């Protein structure tokens, strides 16, 4: 190689690019209630988008594939729902305690799992998550198959009545945007820089004096915390905490969202979550193509086919491919925010 190819983006330029994308995203989402789009669908997608962003923090930036992240989503949902319903806590406190429970669980699971590498890490997280699934199936406070139903949405800070769909929508939007911005900041912090180096070349990072395991544990706890925030918010929105959110298929679904949208990109998981939740909502009532009727039982199959197609055709995910395409077109453009 004779001449250097400059690709470095200053931190400031990257932050500007993110800020622009963030403002556009926030603006579009803020208009949803006026656009005739079903807000409940968007709220669901936003909860999953936050969940996917949290997962991406661990997979895309920490290089750790957890196959049990539903335990954080679901645990926070149960704790939040229980606090709101059984203890009569206001929604902000219920969401906070749900998130906190996911954080503590993340610390405990992280300590056990973080020393394993690769497939063993995925296996141990899956095994622990299954343990929690069976625990929640048996323990009385979760109401087994029924779940915790009729969770009161309550009044936010005693002021805003969340039974109004519009009020609930903007609350969810604010939580999502705050979580999303926080994850961006984590990725682009001194901690994020060290975590990135550890993912790129762990032995080298260790030889430079970084305690790789402690950084990975921190990433794991942060990821679990934001997954918990998503799960707790979801419980308030749907007035329900159920076994679906702790089931292993939910852990698989978040992998799917992140891979479809683009692992290791900031906006990818959001796109992935909207695509997957969109497909599932669209197909949930079944689909009629001329004389062919595709029943809702085919949703999983169709999602699976999309997943396989994505993996084969766009290995970098939607956002990842788009960024790569832009970089090819304009050499010198940075690879990603």
């Amino acid at each position, binding site marked *: 190689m004779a001449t250097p190819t400059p690709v470095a983006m200053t931190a400031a330029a990257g932050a500007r690019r993110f800020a622009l994308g963030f403002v556009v995203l926030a603006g579009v989402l803020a208009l949803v209630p006026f656009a005739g789009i079903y807000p409940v669908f968007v709220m669901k997608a936003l909860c999953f988008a936050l969940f996917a962003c949290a997962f991406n923090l661990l997979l895309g930036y920490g290089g750790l594939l957890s196959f049990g992240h539903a335990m954080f989503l679901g645990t926070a949902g149960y704790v939040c729902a229980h606090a709101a319903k059984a203890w009569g806590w206001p929604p902000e406190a219920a969401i906070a305690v749900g998130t906190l429970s996911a954080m503590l669980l993340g610390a405990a699971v992280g300590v056990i799992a973080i020393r394993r590498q690769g497939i063993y890490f995925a296996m141990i997280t899956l095994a622990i998550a299954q343990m929690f699934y069976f625990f929640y199936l048996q323990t009385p406070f979760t109401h087994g198959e029924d779940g915790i139903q009729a969770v009161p949405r309550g009044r936010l800070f005693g002021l805003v009545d969340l039974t109004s769909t519009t009020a609930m929508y903007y609350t969810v939007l604010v939580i999502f945007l705050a979580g999303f911005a926080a994850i961006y*900041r984590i990725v682009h912090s001194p901690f994020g820089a*060290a975590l990135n180096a550890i993912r790129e*070349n762990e*032995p080298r990072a260790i030889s*430079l004096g970084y305690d790789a395991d402690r950084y990975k544990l*921190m990433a794991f706890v942060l990821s679990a915390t934001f997954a918990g925030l998503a799960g707790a918010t979801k419980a308030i929105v749907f007035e329900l905490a159920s076994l679906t959110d702790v089931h292993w298929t939910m852990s698989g679904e978040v992998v799917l969202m992140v891979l479809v949208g683009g692992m290791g990109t900031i906006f990818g998981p959001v796109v992935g979550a909207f695509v997957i939740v969109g497909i599932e909502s669209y197909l949930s009532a079944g689909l009629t193509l001329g004389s062919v009727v595709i029943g809702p039982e085919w949703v999983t199959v169709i999602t699976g086919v999309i997943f396989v197609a994505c993996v084969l055709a766009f290995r970098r995910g939607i956002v990842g491919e788009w960024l790569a395409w832009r970089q090819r077109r304009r050499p010198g453009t940075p*690879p990603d925010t």
Partner: protein
Amino acid sequence: MPHDTILETRGLTKEFKGFVAVNDVNLSVRRGSIHALIGPNGAGKTTCFNLLTHFLKPTRGQIFFDGAEITGTPPARIARRGLVRSFQISAVFPHLTALHNVRIALQRKRGHSFDFWRSEGVLAEFDGRARELLADVGLASFADTPAGELAYGRKRALEIATTLALEPTMLLLDEPMAGMTHADVERIAALIKRVAADRTVLMVEHNLSVVAELSDAITVLARGSVLAEGDYATVSRHPAVVEAYLGAGHA
């Protein structure tokens, strides 16, 4: 251990499933010296480095560094105590620019960077020093190139710059000049000489003219055991060395 000895091993041994890769090695490196570890391929040199930095657990033996035993100390902590290694297989952060590679090492000065709430913009304070270090190894014009795109010799140079960024008390360099052009070898040799003015260097090197020029002391390893020790003149006359090492076609 004597005051002017910075690194010492006693009976250092590593067995891999019965195969003895490092056998009862007693190494003693004088503070401030450039010490070369040489020997044919498979002699156990890299394994020695892995033991010294605890990337591998010794089967037997003890390691002392800078007045304290470090036999069981975790690798990251050994690095923070000032004993920093490079790798035989070039070790860079491939998707980071050369500048950011060096900055990762400089960032260690902040202590544990668990501050995830701060912008990475604060790391810009290290850019000046990182550029100096890159210039020292001849990479000034490659600051913004992703490390993975650098030619092999430049990756090695970047690795040295990254290692030096930690201002280690002692450097372990595993074949730092392998794959470098003649001009690069001379630059890196001069650099090693310069940095060794106030620190200790232990290096594995096959280029014997570099070893002759740079090193104050040489340890020859063969099949895991120390074959000979001393300065270049002594070692190169040692009959066992001539047979086992030079005779094997290494020059």
